[in-house]
């Protein structure tokens, strides 16, 4: 109920929602209030009612309850839209990666990856694809643990009906089969993005930070080799938007990540496999020896903390719960590229 919450400062604003800091009047607990904008596109009246993106997010968050998935505390209608009451989060993984004052040890990276993969495995075991995995959707809770957020693009998969839209994920984290126009894909698209995040945690910069789709793909192939080389994902040719790149051979990961342990690189290599059929699943990844080997993952409470959101200077650094600010590049911003609108982009929503 709306009366139960006080709305505080604006934390971040995106195309589809604004996130405010809030408090629960009954308990005084901090919350984040995510106000989905009413649909303005359909004319003054709003012809579509509640945005399907918001509806997906509510529908799925209502179901997914997991220690590494953001908790939907409550929801209530407001004017022509809906407000989601979410757990309040102090920061996000992007802020951690970018904060030059923080040192991430091998154990810290392992801890983040373990929590992230646990959240993904929980989604996948319930037939939910996240489809918008990137560091600033991995929020950091006050207790230091990682929580997966922003389910606006996620959906249920595995139904015999319907193809899915391939216009999902921010380009830097988009799996190669999606670039090539695959409309039937599985949970390993999320695993690809998790692999990109692991690479980013190790390098402290995005792994495939291309300026445009083609540029991202060329960076992917520069690391993983082009499809077809050495029997690597020959089926790619059959995808509708397949593009032939100048043939390159895969680069040994060791060359890019000289400091990483070999078990870490083995797991990374299995997550960043071009062929979706050969890519490791989130559940398998969790069973990889990397997580059992030394050093053990850092307990969340001991992970390095970036500046708290409220301490951060306005407009810079650690911002964004969910739909906060977007990364400066790539030009095709994740938000504009992603939205499966009914008409328009042509890929529209899967029926």
């Amino acid at each position, binding site marked *: 109920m709306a009366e139960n919450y006080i709305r505080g400062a604006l934390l971040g604003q995106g195309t589809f929602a604004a996130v405010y800091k809030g408090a629960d009047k009954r308990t005084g607990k901090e919350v984040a209030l995510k106000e989905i904008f009413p649909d303005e596109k359909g004319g003054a009246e709003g*012809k579509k*009612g*509640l945005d399907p993106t918001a509806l997906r997010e509510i*529908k799925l968050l*209502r*179901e*997914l309850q997991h220690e590494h998935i953001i908790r939907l505390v409550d929801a209530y209608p407001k004017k022509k839209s809906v407000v989601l009451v979410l757990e309040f989060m102090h920061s996000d993984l992007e802020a951690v990666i970018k904060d030059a004052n923080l040192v991430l040890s091998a154990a810290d990276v392992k801890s983040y990856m373990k929590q992230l993969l646990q959240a993904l495995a929980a989604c996948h075991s319930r*037939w939910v694809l996240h489809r918008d995995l990137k560091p600033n959707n991995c929020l950091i809770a006050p207790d230091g643990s990682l929580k997966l957020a922003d389910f606006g693009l996620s959906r249920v998969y595995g139904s015999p009906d319907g193809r899915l839209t391939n216009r999902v994920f921010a380009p830097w984290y988009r799996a190669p089969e999606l670039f090539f126009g695959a409309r039937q894909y599985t949970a390993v698209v999320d695993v690809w993005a998790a692999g990109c995040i692991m690479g980013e945690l190790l390098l402290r910069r995005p792994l495939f930070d291309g300026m445009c789709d083609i540029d991202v793909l060329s960076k992917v192939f520069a690391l993983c080799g082009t499809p077809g080389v050495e029997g690597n994902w020959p089926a790619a040719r059959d995808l509708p938007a397949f593009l032939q790149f100048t043939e390159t051979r895969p680069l040994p990961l060791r060359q890019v990540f000289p400091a990483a342990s070999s078990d870490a690189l083995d797991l990374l290599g299995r997550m960043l496999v071009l062929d979706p059929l050969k890519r490791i699943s989130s559940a398998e990844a969790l069973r990889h020896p990397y997580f059992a080997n030394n050093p053990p993952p850092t307990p969340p409470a001991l992970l390095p903390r970036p500046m708290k959101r409220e301490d951060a200077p306005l407009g810079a650094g650690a911002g964004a719960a969910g739909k906060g600010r977007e990364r400066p590049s790539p030009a095709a911003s994740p938000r504009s590229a992603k939205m499966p609108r009914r008409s328009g982009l042509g890929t529209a*929503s899967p*029926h």
Partner: protein
Amino acid sequence: MAASYWDSHCSRNLVSKEQLECSHAEDRLLGLTREHIQQLNVYFCASIAELAKQLKLRQRVAATAMIYFRRAYLCNNFCRLDPRLVYVACLYLACKAEESLLAAKHLVVHAKNLRPKWTYDVKDLLDMEMVLLEDLDFNLIVFSPYRELARLLSDAGVEQACAQRAWGALNDSYRSDVNLLYPPHIVALGCLCLAAGSCGVDLTAWLQRLNVDLGQVAAVVAELTALYPQNSAGMGADECHRLLDLVGTRWDSSASGSGERRR
């Protein structure tokens, strides 16, 4: 279907017989009998099915909409919330939840086609969507017995004719309360037993191998059987309008002040 049945639908969305008995208290005060209410429910679920068919929507979307409709009236009354609008809003919301997006305008046109007396517009529909979301407490994922039935049919290995009947029984089951009362696998099993009974197939040995509460299955079969004779004389549209207008006026004139009528 999504998520884990046991920690969502099962714990939040099944109701007891007693809860069901208590619903529509105000309607009953204003003169509707339990039979009336039952028939109105059947009428509107049939309307959802018809509208869905006209729009070429999948059966699952219609099934979800019917469940929304029934759940919405667990805490509401016909006299306060007009089911003639609610059923269309249920279908609209179900389309979104089941990823079969549909323009509200389009739906309104078809609703008018189906029932020429339908007096609402897009704005009413969208307002009702919000009301509905709140009354459903944002629980939008519905577990339907269709997948369960497919699995049971292949496991029991019954003939085509019997399987056809079971599917039919399942579609009919939405006119009863079983989908509110029992989990999907029990409903699916009930439909299969009903079909087997009418086709003379003996499933006793197979049933005994299953680890389910056969008492519940029997209850489903009984509810479904009860559906058939009574339903042959379903309620006509005119009778339905008459009853709804009646409780609507009675509610307005009673002006009890205990709550405003929402459309």
